């Protein structure tokens, strides 16, 4: 029961990156995703790398967490590299075996593209590593606010997000409990033929759905009992505030972009 449940991959901390306003982080990452594709020589890649590594080190997140975050995408990075290596036919042939010819352009492209990938994933995982899911939800609600003019249900969307986040640990605990009860009644979740194991999921899923619906109903009733009626005129528990450090980071990031454009070669 006492499983320490970690939602997402948030690593608690008190670094500059942790304390930044989540909106600042999301905006910067949003633009970073675009400018990564503008880099086209060693100098411009260098600027981006310095930026990414600098944010990584200021965040003080232990390297092993970052590496763990990258594990599922290593395959993608390597696959991209190999694909570019074999498919691109530019520059001079530098190696040849069997039916494959490797061109120098392919090698450079392969390195460049997979490096782009690496930078992207590094920076985006830094967001989830230093920001709690609830902060991200708050930031998204705030940033989508202008859409309200077009009748887009921003508050409801954010509420849905935070409720689902809230109930993930609860449902996991419930799953644990029910699977133990059914295992005691002779269900075998771990061994046996695949067909049997798929069948064993039914006694787990049905009670889980029943209790999830019951919970939803109870929550809705509790909210109504306390007079909840949507986001109109509601104040917030966690106020998002742009601090001096956020402005400082934005200016710094502007310099990064300017530097990138200067370092870029136009051909």
């Amino acid at each position, binding site marked *: 029961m*006492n*499983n320490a449940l970690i939602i997402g991959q948030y690593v608690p901390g008190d670094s500059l990156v942790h304390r930044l306003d989540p909106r600042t982080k999301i905006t910067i990452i949003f633009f970073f995703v675009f400018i990564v594709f503008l880099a086209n020589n060693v100098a411009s890649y260098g600027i981006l790398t310095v930026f990414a590594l600098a944010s990584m080190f200021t965040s003080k997140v232990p390297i092993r967490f970052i590496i763990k975050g990258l594990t599922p995408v290593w395959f993608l990075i390597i696959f991209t590299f190999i694909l570019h290596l074999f498919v691109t036919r530019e520059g001079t042939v530098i190696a040849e075996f069997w039916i494959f010819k490797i061109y120098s352009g392919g090698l450079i492209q392969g390195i460049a593209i997979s490096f782009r990938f690496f930078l992207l994933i590094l920076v985006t995982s830094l967001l989830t590593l230093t920001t709690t899911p609830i902060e991200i939800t708050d930031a998204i609600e705030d940033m989508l606010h202008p859409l309200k003019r077009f009748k887009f249900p921003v508050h409801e969307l954010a509420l849905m997000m935070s409720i689902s986040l809230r109930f993930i640990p609860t449902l996991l605990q419930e799953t644990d409990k*029910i699977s*133990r009860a059914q295992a005691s009644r002779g269900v075998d979740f771990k061994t046996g033929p695949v067909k049997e194991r798929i069948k064993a999921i039914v006694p787990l899923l049905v009670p889980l759905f029943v209790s999830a619906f019951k919970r939803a109903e109870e929550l809705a009733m509790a909210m109504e009992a306390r007079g909840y009626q949507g986001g109109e005129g509601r104040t917030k528990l966690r106020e998002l505030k742009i601090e001096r450090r956020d402005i400082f980071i934005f200016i710094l990031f502007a310099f990064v972009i300017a530097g990138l454009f200067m370092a870029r070669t136009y051909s």
Partner: protein
Amino acid sequence: MDITFKNVTYIYQQNTPFAHKAIEDLSFHVESGSILAVIGHTGSGKSTLIQHLNGLSVPTEGEVSIGEYRLSKDHKLKDMKELRSRVGVVFQYPEHQLFEETVAKDIAFGPQNFDVPESEINRRIKEIIPAVGLPESILERSPFDLSGGQMRRVAIAGVLAVKPDVLVLDEPTAGLDPRGQKEIMDMFYKLHKEQGLTTVLVTHSMEDALKYADRILILNKGTKFMEGTPEEVFEQKEALQSVQLDVPESVQFLSKFEKRFGHAIPFQKQSVEEIAQTIQQIIKGAESR
């Protein structure tokens, strides 16, 4: 079946930063055919103890033996199913485990998993339904249409239909009305006696522990705090209060009676009626003097 815990320690998520000792160096013995009440606060390791009784958890250190089955770090059972068919566990709020379309199918689910023949299952259902106090007309209804108390009884019937030798009850009366609580506990007690079961009852109710248990085990922070017969345990009022546990009302009454009237009535697991008779005799004795 006899149950023995020998120096059992259980650590959750060992070798991670979240490692957490739930039970530490716990030893006790439950004799075949007796009732052991386990008492303790939330987080005292009661639930973990239960999971060791049918192999849901295997001790990190030490050894658990249930009848001829032995469970330890180096000795894992090849087939947990056999053990689980002989140890029936009624978890807290067992109605949450119902899932079938009809009550009959849900009760049959356990025995089916343990390969009990169909005709035998039907015979058992017929036998169990009145025993748990449900009408037979309920069998073809959906378990989700029933009241909370009825759902609880169906879930209990599902565990009993396996015909276990050891019955483990984790707060089986939580959330029921007082009358339902008494009915359910009396039913378990009757079954225990009739079928010669070995019962482990986890409870918060000192009254139930006093009334039904042969021995009481008190857990505190994963270790054994006290063990003995109800008389032995409830005598130690101060020690119990030091771990925020109360003695049953009748014991409280006797100690207050002594303070107020200067007559000590030794506690011997008497019922309310017996205490009343003793008091009556004392009063009569005082009058005739």
